[in-house]
């Protein structure tokens, strides 16, 4: 633990990442899908002589520019701040491995932003052919940002054996391409592209739902129906994407999924299966609702309907991201780094030398409660909060010291048959450190702690 810990009461750090990410993804995927949508719509306009589409498309490109250029960019930086604070060690690993990849992504991002601005401000000012080219430049550059970031995101789920063989040797970057084109790279890219196209359709419906001008109603009807069709790929190909993802994921993850599906009938299915079910159900609902709200009677579509569709898309997106996080447990980088930032190959070292000795930000001498709190902050708080989300107070269920000791021992031993092994990392540290953690947890369990005071006093 080479970094101070960011204490977010209530929701906890991971949800800060989650909330910003969901917001960002809803815009970033629109940036990619909408980037393809706009020049295609414009090309259709020119080829089929649908001049009446022009004012509506201009209106759409304005929303596009504001959303992607302002909110997308700002929330993207927000994710950097949040992951840097909640998972500094994992962020550091990603930077060390993919700094070149990120550099490429930023180049494409800058081209994307510039092209979006040029595209919006040059309607009717430059030749139509050139304007269309700018649109396609935007589409390609924004899609390439997805191509790059997808490699880094899917790496965390399945780094691949080639990279794992060199992990921790200092030569990880030698396996850049193997890590980048990892086993789940292509199915992830496939799924994300489908989602991007769907969001392009939904956002277009938001613009067209707000067109109230009577003279544009016939045009609006055509465009609403055309945009609704952008959800067809997702509706038809979702099972292909999910199946592809399933066969390429790590065997352990596949086992968790299989176990979940086989126990749906008895109601004992796992959290990840419940969340995956949310994704599938909500995606089907989005497609059905688009059919009823937009495709069937396009004239009746309102912005309210379109926003409801966006809300549903947010549920589908967030549940997919949540499922991805849950499948990855107990790792943040599969088979390399646990969700509490401890590398697999550091476990022995921390158990013999001590966890806190290797934590530069903690004072060397501490009272047991303060030491226990430092252990809690270092090893538990990347997933748990004291009394909010995944509350330790609630999960400990008023356990006494003996029960807490047993629980910590089970977490420390990390035996293959441990019930916690599938979703919790091992507890590392010396006996003394674990005892201190038990002292702190007992106080937490019985509601006797003054949160965050003990450690501050020690400082």
């Amino acid at each position, binding site marked *: 633990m080479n970094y101070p810990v960011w204490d977010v009461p209530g929701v906890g750090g991971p949800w800060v990442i989650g909330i910003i990410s969901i917001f960002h993804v809803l815009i970033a995927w629109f940036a990619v899908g909408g980037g393809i949508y706009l020049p295609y719509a414009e090309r259709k306009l020119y080829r089929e002589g649908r001049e009446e589409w022009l004012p509506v498309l201009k209106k759409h490109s304005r929303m596009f520019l504001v959303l992607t250029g302002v909110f997308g960019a700002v929330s993207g930086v927000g994710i950097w701040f949040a992951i840097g604070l909640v998972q500094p060690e994992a962020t550091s690993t990603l930077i060390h491995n993919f700094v070149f990849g990120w550099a490429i992504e930023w180049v494409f991002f800058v081209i994307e932003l510039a092209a979006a601005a040029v595209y919006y401000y040059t309607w009717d000012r430059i030749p139509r052919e050139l304007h269309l080219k700018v649109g396609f430049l935007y589409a390609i550059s924004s899609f390439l940002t997805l191509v790059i970031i997808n490699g880094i995101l899917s790496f965390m789920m399945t780094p691949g054996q080639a990279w794992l063989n060199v992990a921790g040797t200092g030569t990880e970057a030698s396996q850049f391409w193997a890590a980048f084109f990892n086993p789940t790279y292509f199915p992830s890219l496939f799924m994300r592209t489908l989602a991007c196209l769907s969001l392009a359709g939904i956002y277009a419906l938001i613009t067209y739902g707000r067109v109230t001008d009577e003279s544009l109603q016939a045009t609006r009807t055509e465009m609403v129906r055309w945009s609704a069709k952008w959800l067809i790929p997702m509706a038809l190909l979702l099972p292909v994407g999910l199946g592809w993802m399933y066969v390429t994921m790590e065997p352990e993850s596949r086992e968790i999924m299989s176990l979940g599906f086989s126990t*749906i*009938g*008895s*109601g004992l299915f796992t959290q990840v299966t*419940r969340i995956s*079910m*949310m994704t599938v*159900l*909500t995606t089907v*609902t989005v497609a*059905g*609702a688009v*059919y*009823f*709200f937009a495709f*069937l*009677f396009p004239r*009746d579509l*309102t912005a*309210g*309907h379109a926003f*409801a569709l966006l809300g*549903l898309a947010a*549920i589908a997106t967030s549940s997919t991201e949540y499922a991805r996080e849950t499948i990855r447990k107990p790792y943040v980088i599969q088979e390399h780094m646990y969700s509490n930032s401890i590398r697999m190959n550091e476990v022995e070292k921390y158990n013999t030398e001590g966890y806190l000795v290797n934590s530069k930000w903690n004072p060397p001498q501490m009272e047991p409660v303060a030491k226990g709190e430092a252990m809690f902050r270092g090893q538990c708080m990347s997933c748990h909060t004291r009394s909010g989300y995944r509350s330790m107070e609630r999960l400990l269920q008023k356990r006494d010291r003996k029960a807490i000791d047993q629980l910590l021992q089970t977490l420390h031993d990390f035996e293959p048959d441990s019930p916690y092994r599938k979703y919790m990392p091992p507890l590392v540290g010396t006996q003394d450190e674990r005892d201190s953690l038990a002292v702190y947890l007992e106080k937490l369990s019985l509601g006797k702690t003054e949160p965050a005071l003990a450690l501050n006093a020690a400082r």
Partner: protein
Amino acid sequence: MKLETLKADLVERLGLEEAIKLAGKKTVPVHKHTFWYFWGGISLFSFLIQVVTGILLMVYYRPGPEAYESVRQITYQIQFGWLIRSVHNWSANFFLFSVFVHMFSVFLMKAYRRPREVGWYSGIALLLLGLTFGFSGYLLPMDELSFFATKVGMEIPNAIPIIGPPIANLLRGGLEVNEFTVQRFFALHVVILPLLYMPLLGLHLWMVQKHGNAAPPSEEAKEPSQRKTMPFFPNFVAQDLGVWLIVLNLISLLAALFPWQLGPQADPLAAAPEGIHPEWYFMSQFAMLKLIGRVIPGLAGEAAAMTLFTLGLVLWALIPVFDKDKTNTKRSRQVLYFGIFVILVLLSTTFMGFVI
């Protein structure tokens, strides 16, 4: 082509022209409050889900002494039993919630005025029957929570002066809640209440079809040429279907993420668990009983609370008698203030019920 022929054949043989003509006559006003028109349909859809899942639950549910064991089997042993039960319970809550939203939106749009009074009266009766559905269904699992919540909940009818105690005894099948109560509640839940509910629902839907959706006063004030409408069939129905799909999705998600659990078996001799209270839709009455009980202790307090509540309900039901005119009169404003007062009281007492 063949489909067209089949359609024409069906229309001819079943005499569907009349139904299509009737459906085509109705239009739905389009304005900024159109969203609230969906809530009646949402209530209906949640009710239909309960009918379907309720029938499936009846396949395995055994009222009487085995009630708890049968629900345990449904929840933990029978394949997908947990899903059917959870969907039934969640849709029940969703149903009552949407009925309340529907009722207050009807009230605020002044849709109870002539000629829609029968729709209002039948709606109130449907709400009361819906609440009784909820109350009778809640006991059926006979776990600790449902047992004690019903026991506490029975204090509400019990507190009605004179007729209350005999009604409570009749419902319970004696002085205490036990397996006889479960059998009575079951009969009430699956036979008596549906028998009363279905014809009333038919009347209510007929009234909606007959008189159409009322536009709010702000729309009524506009020139007829400025008002927008859409055909009920097929346009509004398509939107209804979209909304129903979303509702089904929400209920499925709630059932999957927060499946309804079963507590320990009810033990009548044990002490009631701490903080026991009825379901949220009875919380307002429960809180009033408690609050007034603090000022006027004993039976007199309970009787006062129930009298007050019954009086409020009667006044609420009789709103169309007081505010009949389509114009914005003084009476109309008084009714609006009364309604806002009722909404505030219900919300605040419901909230208080959870904290006191």
